[in-house]
Structures are given as C-alpha cells and as structure tokens.
C-alpha cells in the first residue's frame, strides 16, 4: 500500500503490522495527551509538585532527554568539524533521535510552566543573566538547526525527492551542512552547559552550587562534557534497539566502534573531572557554607551516599573503562552493559542535580523533603517516549536513514 513511500532497496514490514504497532504507541501517546490537557486546563495542581519541589520529575526528564539528545550535536561535530567521515553512516539517526529529544524537551517545558500562554515572555522579556533564558534561546535555536539537519533526510523520501524543488533544496542543504552543524554545535555546547548552569548557579542551594569560571559554574562544563560523552551512547543504544526490533543489522560495527571509543574517552575524562569537582565541592565549597559532604547524603535512604557511588563508579568509571579498551568494546555483552550504564549514569546525574537539590534541607530546622510524582506527571513524561517511538518508526520506515542498510541486508 505505502510502497511508494518506502526508500528503494530496503525491506519493511507490512503496513498492517506497522499499523498495529502504531495503534499501541498512539494509545500511550493519548494517555499522555489527556494528562497534558489536564495540566493545561486545570493547572499544575494536577501534579504532586509542591513549594519545596518546584522542579521535579519533568525538569529531570527535560535535562535527561537533552543530555541523551546530545548524540546529535556531538556526532555532527565529529563528522562535520573534526572530519570523522565514517560517522556519516550514523549521523542521520543521531539527528532523528536529536529531533525527538529536543521536541520532547520543549513539549515538557510547555507543560511544566504555570502559564503556558505567557511562555513567550522568556524570549521577549529575556533576562540575559538567567541560565534558563540561555537554555530557552539555545534550545529553540538548536531545535531549528536540528530540523534543518533533518529536512534533507525528509526530502530524500522517494515521493518528495521527485519534486525538483525539494530535490535541489536537499542537495543544497547537504552542501552547506557543515555550517549548520557548526552553528548547532556552538548552540548545543552552550545550552548543554547552561542546563548545568541552571543548578550550578543556585548559590542558595549548597547541594547544587558550584564555583566556576567567569560566569559559568563547573557544572556548566560538566554537563556539556557528559552530554557529549553519553549522548552518542544513547544513539548507539537506540540503534541497537532498532536493530533488535527490525531484526537486521543497520550500521556497520566499525562505525559503532569508533563512536563508542570516542564516547569512552569522553566519559573517562568527564568522570575524572566529575570526581575532581565533587572533591573540590566537598573539600572547599561546602565547608565555607558550614556543610560537610555527608550532610547531603545522610538521613534519607533515597538519597544515600550510594547514589553518588552509583553515579561515579558504577555508571562512570566502569563503562568508561569498558568503552576505552578495545577488548571491552569487542565483547558484545560488556559493550552493551557499558552503553546502558553510561546512559543511566547521565540520567542519574541529572536526577541528582534536580531532585536532590530540592530534597536537601538548607535551613537547619527543616527536614528532607519527599516527593512522589502523580500519574499525570508520569503520563506526560511517558508521552515524549511514545512520541519518540512513533517518530522514529515513521522515520525508519519511510526515510533513508541508514545508508548501509541495503548493503548489509541485500534484497534477494
């Protein structure tokens, strides 16, 4: 039925099967949409957020999803700026995942604010001193860039490609893609960083506050670094999942291996920086404010010292070592473990920087604050996941995302 839309030289499942898969995803999406509408029309009382947890599940999801979407900018950076040409075989997918992540991030933000109809104030009445302003500007600009990076791919759909205008447009855009990618990398570097700055500048919140360089707290750099390290891991993870579902190989091992190796080194250097940051924070920043490290990890099993160990050791050092060593990368099981740990690691980092910052008491006469998300929050957080799956499914089905697919899976 939709064969005209399917790229040449590849095989796709039947439309019926695809539709079933879509119906299942749309059902989840609708659940999220209902929750979203509830939040918009009834207000944020639909959530379990409160005055202590002004930032909660959503902001975590937002930060995590952007970190994971970092694969797009970093892979683009490697391909177009550094010149790692092999990566052209995965860059398309990295861009698709990036678009999903950034659309999700903006959608979550649109639900998260108390007055969505006023959200354009962040642009119009911008406070240039606020990290959130920087986030909003770079985030939306970068989404524009990502869409620009995605468009040529869309125009390569057999049906669209037939139109000369789109054909040429796609071609022209490909030609100057390095400029877009460079701008994207610049924007991305800043917004990944400013997301780190969001918590790092909170000098009233000793758990989050970091000293830094000029106007940027150390978290600014750590966030960019970790997004660059773990974003590609997420791209690899999604690629592997896609391969599992499609039941065929889509990207050659040497491409994955190269990306993973770079990720490994990034993760390794990041985790050293992170350890140094944690030590400096614990040894110099905190005592000046009358705190010791353990003040932020005691009295609460949920945020016990284990979370720091898991973040740094289990989800930092271990995957870095595996990914750096070629032996580790060769061992399939170890490799996937490392990829998953790295992805979890960056999510834990974002979780901690948002949630633990809110939970930890600052005034001596307060106690730890606890919070459980409401179903509306969970549903709206799952909504982007469903959206992502739908988007990726469409993209995979109808767009020539994987240049090596036909070579790896010749049709008889």
């Amino acid at each position, binding site marked *: 039925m939709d064969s005209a839309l399917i790229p040449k030289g590849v095989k796709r499942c039947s439309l019926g099967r695809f539709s079933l898969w879509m119906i299942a995803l749309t059902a989840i999406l609708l659940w999220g949409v209902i929750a979203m509408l509830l939040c918009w029309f009834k207000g944020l009382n639909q959530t379990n957020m409160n005055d202590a947890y002004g930032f909660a599940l959503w902001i975590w999801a937002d930060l995590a999803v952007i970190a994971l979407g970092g694969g797009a900018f970093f892979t683009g950076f490697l391909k177009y700026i550094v010149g790692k040409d092999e990566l052209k075989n995965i860059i398309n997918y990295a861009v698709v995942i990036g678009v999903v992540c950034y659309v999700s991030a903006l959608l979550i933000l649109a639900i998260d604010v108390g007055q969505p109809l006023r959200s354009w104030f962040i642009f119009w*009445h911008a406070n*240039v001193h606020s990290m959130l302003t920087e986030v909003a500007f770079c985030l939306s600009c970068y989404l524009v*860039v990502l869409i620009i990076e995605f468009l040529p791919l869309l125009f390569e759909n057999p049906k669209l490609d037939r139109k000369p*205008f789109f*054909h040429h447009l796609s071609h022209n855009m490909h030609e*100057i893609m390095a400029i*877009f990618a460079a*701008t994207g990398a610049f924007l991305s570097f800043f917004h990944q960083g400013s997301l780190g700055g969001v918590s790092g500048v909170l000098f009233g919140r000793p758990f989050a506050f970091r000293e830094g360089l000029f106007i940027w707290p150390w978290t600014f750099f750590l966030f960019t670094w970790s997004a660059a390290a773990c974003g590609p891991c997420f791209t690899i993870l999604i690629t592997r999942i896609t391969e599992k579902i499609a039941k065929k190989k889509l990207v050659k091992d040497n491409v994955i291996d190269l990306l993973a190796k770079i990720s490994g080194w990034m993760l390794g250097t990041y985790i050293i920086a992170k350890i140094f940051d944690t030590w400096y924070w614990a040894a110099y920043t905190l005592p000046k404010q009358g705190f010791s490290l353990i003040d932020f990890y005691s009295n609460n099993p949920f945020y016990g010292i284990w979370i720091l160990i898991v973040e740094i050791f289990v989800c930092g050092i271990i995957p870095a070592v595996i990914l750096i060593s070629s032996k580790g990368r060769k061992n399939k099981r170890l490799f996937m473990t490392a990829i998953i740990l790295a992805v979890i690691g960056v999510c834990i980092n974002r979780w901690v920087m948002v949630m633990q910052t809110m939970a930890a008491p600052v005034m001596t006469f307060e106690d730890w604050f606890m919070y459980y998300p409401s179903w509306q929050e969970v549903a709206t957080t799952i909504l982007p996941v469903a959206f992502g799956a739908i988007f990726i499914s469409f993209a995979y089905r109808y767009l020539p995302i994987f240049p090596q697919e036909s070579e790896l899976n010749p049709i008889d």
Partner: protein
Amino acid sequence: MFPFCFEWVWDMSHIVFMGGLWYALGIVGAGLTYCIVKAAKESSDNHSNGDH
C-alpha cells in the same frame, strides 16, 4: 530580546548574549535562505531545461 523591549539595556551582558544569539540565528537564517533561493532557481531552471 529586541532593543525596543522594555527590559533592554545596552550593557555588556545584553550585547554578548544577544549578539551571540542573533549571530547564530543570522547564520542559520542566511544559510537556509541561500538553500531555498538556490533550490527555487535551480528547480525552475531545471524545468525550463526539462531535464528532470
């Protein structure tokens, strides 16, 4: 966002921040315009040549 916005001040932070932003937007906008104009031109040329 714009110099005519109420909050605008001609200070270093605004110039650096908004400068960077408009610079990036400018590049993206210009690149995109270039591609579109060129594609429009090419596609109409192609049409007249009829060599699609």
